[in-house]
């Protein structure tokens, strides 16, 4: 219970989920694109990184054995490319269909990973992924290095997404989300902007993928089942969809909460219950937040200070129902 290494691991995982949730917020919170394909993008980035850096002795058909510092940015770019390939056709669809299409693409990617075993080792997976600096720091101390990497990645993600949010680009993105027709009537190239945003989210998720791999250490297709998409979404919804800090706060609350409950000592014969605790809590939190605090911990309103300066006109107002989830286009 008081093992510090355990908590270092929890915080590392939380920082990774925070990065993913903040990336998701750019496309879904501000862009209004309800992407259920996070797992697919994460898989694309992860497998790109793993294949580029894999040990040629593992017998994969393509193993250039690149340095991780070269492979890292390449994975980000590759994921951006995958995002473009998904987004260009999918963004022509209305929200509900967009959502189904992204979910379907994510599953296609995962199945392709299973099938293309020559390149990915399929369900066998790839163990012992190389991690940065692990020749200098070894053993348990490495967990602190990993925490450092994850926190730096989350901090960079925060700064980048915050800059996007407060920039004119982010503003037009939110405008087009609120009212596509008006944005078009003002000459905004809404679809092109959305594709760019989708690619940006892909690049950001692809850049996070290696950090996730450093933490997981071994890759296999089942890591990228839809479950991880739902966890990232839950983190973002808890934190507040559309707010700058939402993903960050939501991920820490969600991960610390679910992992801490995992500490409760359970009789080994009830191992099933232990396995079930995490999805149960993620689901429960999602349901409760949607019901009792649909704006999340931080609302979009607080993020952009809208209305706060107009004395008396909006103080204490809560957002109208329906607008809560980033009112649709």
């Amino acid at each position, binding site marked *: 219970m008081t093992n510090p290494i355990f908590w270092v691991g929890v915080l590392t995982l939380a920082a990774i989920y925070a990065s993913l949730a903040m990336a998701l917020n750019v496309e879904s919170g501000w862009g209004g694109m309800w992407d259920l394909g996070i797992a697919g993008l994460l898989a694309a980035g992860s497998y790109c990184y793993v294949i580029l850096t894999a040990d040629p002795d593992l017998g994969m058909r393509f193993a250039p054995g690149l340095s991780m510092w070269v492979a890292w940015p390449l994975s980000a770019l590759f994921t951006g490319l995958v995002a473009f390939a998904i987004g260009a056709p999918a963004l022509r669809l209305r929200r509900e269909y967009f959502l189904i299409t992204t979910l379907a693409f994510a599953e296609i990617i995962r199945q392709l990973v299973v099938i293309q075993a020559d390149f990915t080792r399929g369900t066998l997976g790839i163990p012992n992924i190389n991690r940065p600096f692990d020749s200098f720091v070894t053993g348990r101390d490495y967990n602190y290095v990993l925490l450092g990497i994850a926190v730096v990645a989350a901090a960079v993600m925060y700064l980048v997404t915050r*800059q996007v949010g407060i920039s004119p*680009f982010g503003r037009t993105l939110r*405008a087009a989300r*609120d009212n596509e*027709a*008006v944005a*078009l009537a003002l000459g905004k190239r809404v679809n092109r902007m959305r594709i760019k945003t989708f690619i940006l989210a892909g690049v950001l998720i692809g850049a996070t993928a290696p950090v996730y791999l450093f933490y997981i250490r071994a890759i296999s297709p089942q890591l990228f089942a839809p479950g991880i998409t739902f966890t990232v979404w839950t983190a973002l919804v808890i934190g507040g969809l559309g707010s700058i800090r939402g993903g960050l706060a939501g991920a820490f609350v969600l991960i610390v909460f679910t992992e801490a409950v995992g500490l409760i000592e359970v009789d080994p014969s009830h191992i099933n219950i232990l396995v079930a605790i995490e999805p149960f809590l993620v689901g429960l939190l999602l349901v409760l937040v949607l019901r009792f605090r649909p704006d999340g911990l931080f609302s979009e309103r607080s993020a952009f200070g809208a209305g706060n300066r*107009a004395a008396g006109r*909006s103080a204490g107002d809560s957002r109208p129902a329906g607008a809560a989830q980033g009112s649709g286009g």
Partner: protein
Amino acid sequence: MELVLDTVRKTFGGVVAVDDVSAVMPQDRVTALIGPNGAGKTTLFNAITGFDPPDRGSISFGDQRIDGLPPWRVAELGLIRTFQTPVGFTTLTVRESLLAAATPHFAETPVGALGLSRKARDHERASGDRAEEITAELGMAELLDVRTDELSAGDRKLLEFARSLMAEPKMLLLDEPAAAVAPANIGRLSQLVRRLCDERGLGSLIIDHNLSFLMQIADEVHVLDRGALLASGPPAEIAANPDVMRVYLGEDGAEGEGA
């Protein structure tokens, strides 16, 4: 430069909404488009601005054919429309809405978001000043930091107008700009529309039910009835036209609306 409609036709499932309308609207004049409900005024707006392209006929602005172009492209050419139901960018403040309308394309990319371009920053600052000027002229300066979904319907209507001014228009297409606007502000609005036209050569094409408002500011009036052009001419001539009188008397309440 002028907006030219040549035998523009639009049908919805067999119902003719716009029936071979031909008209010339100078870019630097104020033109009013009137007619009873269902005459096809908004349909014509949607056809001009690319939201619902015509089935037949051609539309051009200056020497550019615009029928069949996507809405953003029509807007880029300088034809900026407003909407009858002023929903706007619900979660943005008035200031943000106005700035968003003025943001140039080169700032609207993920790389542009990094804020490195000096040109973009200067543009943003200039737009901020203009937003304050325009809202002051429309008497809504104190609303700059209020969210759009918290404005009254009348204020949202004014915001529609202000927003279109921010988008570097060559000609405005205003869909019922005076509806729901407080009488005092209608005065400001008509003065502004007139002054923009006289001083800066920025003309408008206006749909409204408030005929006294339109007759005051329009240089030319087109009357639509059941999709077809019934009459065109200066306001005084239109007011004396017996056909127009008949169309309007046949429909109750149209004249009183929005006053």
